[in-house]
């Protein structure tokens, strides 16, 4: 028994020495409380060990990887920046899904662990972050440099709507998107539809869908006309329908939402009918993660998905892919989506400055263009589309311009106090309608009630 113990201790000791070299902050298993600087972030301030010099360390949390080697891409950008700015050292840290990063916010909210210096989080997290007094506005940085002012003027206004509040700029857009409609040009041709244009209106959507849905001799569907995901964050794609029918789901203040306006109820009815009445969509809740795979496999002709998936979908589809606006009803409409840069309050001013320099780098026209090319996210500023690399790219991949062009019709993504829960409430209502559990009017009335109750705790 003692021998086993000794052996075990030896093994553990060996392992501990072995793993210490991996990152500067690998706390040994038997260590005590994590040092304050090491708290919530990845790499930290104090160690000169890794960089060997007095560079200001900035850890940068990024959430979702948009499929593909995003870690490599971001590390590449960080390396480029670090090389050009030897007095700063930025370390990107993949922090999990959007939900994971939010969890980390909540945790820090409850008083423990320090946030990283810089993070990309959902634009809709802004209110939560403000409520928790966690983030600093970028105002001073913007106003103190010509580049800063130029940046704000150059960013597409649609993106700024979820980034500014009360005259302050709390977030700088980074990986932004809108949903778009992807369609399989081959399947369009086979069904006698024009492969160069997606469905323009809601009526077109249904008509196309019916022609594209194929069934076998037993009546089972072999190819679906349409898939619109409704798990995860169903409110996002639904906003497209609501806005297209005339009214967004947000109220005019962070403690107000508009879930059960007549036009919104009608929008949900239309959404639910796609699977229940028109039968061009699979019944039940469609899973976000499965949708691109189904599309690439040719199992569905049209899908709604984020423009951030563009690069991957183009890579994996063995047929020509068309991209178009979300179909219109009263008007075209789409929510914006994606994440902003945020800097955190409890950070040392020198690090905040260093973080800002990295933000400037990442949002420069060239870098913004490159990021868009690498992923499919929309480049956040207009001048990025004048960059030569981007000009070449859009010749080869004209689909990349669709989301940008849709921006003129784009509106604010659903956000409020207690954002996640508000989104969850609306999402549940949407799922209830789609699964047929509850008619849209009842579901949305219920959601409005719950949301009002939740938001009543906040005075504005």
């Amino acid at each position, binding site marked *: 028994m003692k021998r086993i113990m000794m052996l075990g201790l030896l093994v553990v000791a060996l392992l501990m020495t072995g793993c210490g070299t991996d990152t500067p902050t690998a706390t040994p298993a038997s260590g005590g409380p994590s040092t304050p600087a090491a708290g919530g972030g990845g790499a930290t301030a104090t160690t000169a060990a890794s960089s060997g010099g007095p560079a200001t360390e900035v850890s940068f949390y990024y959430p979702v990887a948009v499929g593909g080697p995003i870690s490599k891409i971001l590390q590449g950008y960080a390396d480029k920046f670090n090389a050009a700015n030897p007095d700063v050292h930025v370390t990107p840290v993949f922090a999990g899904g959007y*939900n994971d990063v*939010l*969890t980390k916010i*909540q*945790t820090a*909210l*409850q008083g423990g662990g320090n946030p990283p210096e810089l993070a990309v989080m959902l634009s809709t997290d802004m209110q*939560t972050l403000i*409520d*928790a007094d966690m983030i600093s506005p970028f105002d001073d940085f913007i106003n103190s440099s010509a580049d800063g002012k130029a940046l704000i003027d150059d960013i597409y206004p649609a993106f700024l709507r979820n980034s500014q509040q009360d005259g302050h700029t709390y977030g700088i857009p980074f990986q932004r998107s809108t949903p778009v409609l992807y369609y399989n040009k081959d399947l369009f041709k086979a069904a006698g539809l024009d492969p160069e244009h997606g469905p323009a209106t809601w009526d077109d959507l249904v008509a196309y869908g019916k022609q594209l849905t194929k069934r076998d001799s*037993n009546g*089972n*569907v072999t190819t*679906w006309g349409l898939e619109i995901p*409704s*798990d*995860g964050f169903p409110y996002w794609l639904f906003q497209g329908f609501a806005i297209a029918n005339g009214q967004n789901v947000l109220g005019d203040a962070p403690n107000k939402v508009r879930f059960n306006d007549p036009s919104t109820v009608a929008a949900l009815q239309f959404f639910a009918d796609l699977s229940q009445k028109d039968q061009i969509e*699979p*019944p*039940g*809740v*469609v*899973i976000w993660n*499965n949708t691109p*795979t*189904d599309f690439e*496999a040719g*199992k*569905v002709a049209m899908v709604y998905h984020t423009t951030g998936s563009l690069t991957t979908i183009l890579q994996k589809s063995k047929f020509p892919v068309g991209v178009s606006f979300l179909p219109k009803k009263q008007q075209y409409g789409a929510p914006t989506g994606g994440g902003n840069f945020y800097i955190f309050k409890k950070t040392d001013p020198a690090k905040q400055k260093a973080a800002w320099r990295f933000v400037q780098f990442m949002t420069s026209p060239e870098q913004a263009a490159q990021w868009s090319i690498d992923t499919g996210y929309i480049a956040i500023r207009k001048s990025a589309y004048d960059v030569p690399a981007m000009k070449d790219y859009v010749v080869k991949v004209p689909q990349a311009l669709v989301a940008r062009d849709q921006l003129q019709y784009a509106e604010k993504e659903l956000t409020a*106090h*207690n954002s*996640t*829960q508000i989104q*969850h409430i609306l*999402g*549940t209502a949407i*799922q*209830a309608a*789609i*699964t047929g*559990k509850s008619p849209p009017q009842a579901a949305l009335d219920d959601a409005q009630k719950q949301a009002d109750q939740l938001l009543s*705790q*906040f005075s504005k």
Partner: protein
Amino acid sequence: MAETTVPARPAGRAQAAQPSRLRATFRDSANYLLILPTLLGILAFTLWPLIAGVWNSLFLQNQAHLHPQFAGLENYARLVNDPVFGQVLGNTLLYTLGTVPASIGIALVLALLLNRRLRGVGWLRSAFFYPTMMPMVSVATVWLFMYSPQVGLVNATLQALHLGSPNWLGDDRLVLPALMVLGIWKQSGYLMIFYLAGLQSLPKEVYEAAALDGAGPWQTLRRITWPLLSGTTLFVATIAIAGAFQTTDQIFIMTDGGPNNASDLLLYHIYLTAFRFGDLGLAQAGTVVLLAMLLVVTTANLVFGGRRAYYEDAR
């Protein structure tokens, strides 16, 4: 051991020489040192959290109240008035009813069939036991893929048999059964081992006597095996119930509680409340409810099952 020069003492625990009371007390308290780490651990991570959890559930601590504010039973009132919470409780009970008896039944059948000296029986046993070796998160990932309506194995097989293509994880009536199948598959092999152990410790004479009396296999099972195994069944049921109430990993990976809260089980709901919605006070209240439910169900299991359990003589 070297021979020590100790004054001869009579054998047995009673000591002829009279040690001082102090020495005896000292030695006794030294015994307590042996169990101290264990006791401390249980105090710190089982008993204390119990008390602290109940206490903290009386405070509002969420995004509207960043600093805890005493509120009495308000969190519980909120739970009672929350239709989603009621749904979650129902889901949890359904899931437990759907997985526990089935897993136990399959485990017993497998143990009966595999309790023999067949060549390769080890391999057969492993074929059922191996899911235990894998973390639920990886298993859930695989099953998420398998349940994928258009490209997954389950529907591909069903379609080949012209049986349609249900949306397993996207239909609020199918999602819980889909998770139950996964749960049963994962743990039946584990429970089977306990039944195997139980079967192997059963007295052979009883079976020989029964065979002589002409008892058929079904009678033997009902009248002899099942009652003799009741202790094992009790044990296995307790494990299975506790496991069902702690189901979280597969929900995290596969459904996030949806669609429409249909697969939201209690412990996962507590997690969402604390970490997604930022409401720690409410989550503590939910924990108290969970513990109460667990206590009720486990006690019922013990009382109801224990009364019918038959134990061998303790050796």
